[in-house]
């Protein structure tokens, strides 16, 4: 890991079950795509750590390099990259997201 930002990202996605790298905060998302993922997670009642990449230019680029993924938001579950907004939305609609979270031992609201 030559990029120092990578260690910070690795720590964040290892220490937290569900991490969303996003623009803005869960309460005040600053991008429609980030807001859409927050909405899905809230609907599922999933606790997650939101990390605002706009506060840190190094992280904003670093997370793209770490994940080999060119856009924000990015969702990690138990250290594993799950996808961006389109993928999260598709997986939520098909029920795959709920299944993935449960398989990984993340609590999902029963009626979601």
């Amino acid at each position, binding site marked *: 890991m030559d990029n120092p930002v990578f260690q910070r990202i690795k720590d964040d996605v290892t220490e937290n079950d569900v991490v969303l790298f996003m*623009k803005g905060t869960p309460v005040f998302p*600053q*991008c429609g*795509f980030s807001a859409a993922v927050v909405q899905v997670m809230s609907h599922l009642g999933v606790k997650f750590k939101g990390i605002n990449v*706009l506060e840190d230019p190094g992280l904003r680029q670093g997370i793209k390099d770490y994940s*080999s*993924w*060119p*856009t924000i938001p990015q969702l990690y579950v138990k250290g594993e*990259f*799950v*996808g*961006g*907004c*389109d*993928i999260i939305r*598709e*997986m939520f609609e098909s029920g795959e997201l709920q299944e993935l979270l449960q398989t990984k031992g993340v609590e999902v609201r029963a009626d979601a």
Partner: protein
Amino acid sequence: MPETAPRAPGQPAGRAGRIERTLREALAPQRLEIADDSHRHAGHAGARPEGETHFRVTIVAERFEGLSRVERQRLVNGLLSAEFESGLHALQLSTRTPAEAGPA
């Protein structure tokens, strides 16, 4: 905002045209739709006065068979890396196989 230059029929201008050519060549898609949503994000961070920053692309291609959602999008993003490097800011993707998309 300057008007975009007139273009020859059947030849989409600028980034949309490049995206279309790149994806057609690499994926031989059965269906390919490209929408420029940049105007909907005008003034928002990442938007540029000249536009061409936010695109929505729907692809139906055999090439996606056997690939996960993440692998499909990585494939498309990789094909379009030059566009991301030159100001493409957001790319909404729908990537399905003909079987998943159902009859056209």
